[in-house]
């Protein structure tokens, strides 16, 4: 076979690129135009960037230069870490508890009429549309500074997401067990208790654990708006330009998050195996 024959045999593969996939060419062109537009829109200038980065050089240097290490206030850092963990734990636990009824009510499997389901789902969408930091800011205004506002922010933000995940888990559950219970004369409550809950509980728990994990990350940033925890220590030190201590705290946070990752993965595997 000559080259020409092969090309004729598979015309689509050997078309020039613009003929083969016009969509990708258009997309690349659009992205290119968009980048030019945004360089203008944001007034990007290489000079400013270089200036900024040269300003960062001493910061980066002081980050790793821990010469007064022993004089740092480790006590407040430790309390901050404990507070962050406590906030994440309480917020996730409270959200998980309230998400069970909310999630079940938003599920097709439990509530057959679509109207209440629709209302609950839109309400959850509404909660999820607001970032956790905005909730934290609102609660700080209402309840004052401190970790308590952080717990409430985690609680509200997680209720939105966890309820949705719970309702999806219930939607995806197997109908047969519920039907079996119904056909043997069980009432609504016992079909839920013995038909649905045993199926979805492991999923609920592992999702909650996953959220505890991700909340121990988000609890870190809540301190920036004054909602307590290690984030408060970090942002205070960054504002005061104690870059060395700030970097130390970032490392501690990374270690903490990695440890919780491990723990939660271990527990999730355990739960699925029980």
């Amino acid at each position, binding site marked *: 076979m000559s080259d020409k024959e092969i090309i004729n045999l598979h015309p689509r593969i050997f078309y020039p690129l613009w003929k083969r996939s016009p969509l990708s060419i258009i997309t690349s062109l659009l992205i290119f135009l968009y980048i030019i537009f945004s360089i203008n829109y944001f007034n990007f200038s290489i000079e400013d960037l270089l200036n900024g*980065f040269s300003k960062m050089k001493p910061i980066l240097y002081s980050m790793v230069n821990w010469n007064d290490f022993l004089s740092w206030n480790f006590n407040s850092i430790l309390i901050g870490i404990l507070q962050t*963990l406590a906030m994440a734990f309480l917020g996730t636990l409270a959200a998980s508890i309230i998400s069970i009824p909310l999630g079940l009510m938003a599920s097709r499997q439990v509530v057959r009429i679509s109207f209440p389901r629709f209302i609950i789902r839109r309400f959850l969408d*509404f909660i999820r549309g*607001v*970032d956790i930091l905005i909730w934290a800011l609102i609660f700080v205004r209402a*309840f004052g500074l401190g*970790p308590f506002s952080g717990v409430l922010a985690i609680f509200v933000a997680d209720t939105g997401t966890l309820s949705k995940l719970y309702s999806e888990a219930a939607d995806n559950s197997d109908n047969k067990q519920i039907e079996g219970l119904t056909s043997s004369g069980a009432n609504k409550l016992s079909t839920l208790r013995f038909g649905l809950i045993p199926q979805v509980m492991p999923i609920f728990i592992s999702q909650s654990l996953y959220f505890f994990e991700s909340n121990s990350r988000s609890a870190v940033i809540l301190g920036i708006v004054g909602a307590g925890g290690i984030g408060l220590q970090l942002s205070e030190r*960054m504002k005061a330009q104690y870059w060395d201590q700030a970097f130390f705290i970032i490392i501690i946070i990374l270690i903490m998050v990695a440890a919780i990752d491990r723990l939660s993965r271990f527990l999730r595997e355990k739960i699925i195996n029980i």
Partner: protein
Amino acid sequence: MSEIFIENHNQKLKDLIFKRRLWNIFIIISLLIAVLLSSSIIDINSSRLLNGLPRLGDYISQILPSLDSSSLFLDSNKEGSIAYWYFNLPKYLKLLFETFNMALLATIIGSSIALLLSFLSAKNTAPNSFIYFMTRRTLEFFRGVPEIIFAILFVWALGIGPIAGIIAMTLHTTGSLGKLFSEVHENSDIKPREALKASGGNWPSEMKFGLLPQVLPNLISYTLLRFEINIRASTILGFVGAGGIGQELYLVINFNYYEEVSAIILLIILTVISIDLLSEYLRKNVIEVDNVR
């Protein structure tokens, strides 16, 4: 014979139930202990909660607009109209546009860098284990540090404005997408690449023709998901001065411009939800069709 079997069986069942109950009691007790410990650490008590709840109610009723049904569609001079509530709409829209652009630009740049790095951090495409290890750790660092922390740092270096936020989001996007992309690469089929190698293709063409067509739908889908996340993130980066509508929100919350708080939050929710829906539509329809083709 069968009676013995049933008895045995019942005994086993009882043992199982007993064991299960013991586990449950153990879990509940340890949860209770954890709750008590955490509450004592962050100093929560019921009186504070009870005192706070009415205040929260007050706050919410304060930020809600006082709309009047008779003057709902009058112009912005009349109290109680929607136009009065949203008298600052042009400013909000301008800021929302900035927020949107921050997220989009950070997603584009971040995903491009992530794509380049993902070849180095996937086990089956990395040139050697040292580069693999180093890229992985770097990506982990960028992913592990929250973007708002990066934003504080860049605001300090580059000044207040959206550029600091864009760079912060770009770093975080690179970290998380780089990891996801490299996992997609690792799950790809090696056969097309082997065929290319056998017919004399070099490394770039191996990647371009053997790997990318397989992984591209997944990569685009992850990028769209990340764009949703970045839209959310860019609404809050303004809290530390890194541009977007968050700056305005921070201001109105702290200065107690009550009705503006709800106006901005509603706009943010609408933006986030519509972007989510758009991205879901794109992921479900456009990409999968492309994949089948």
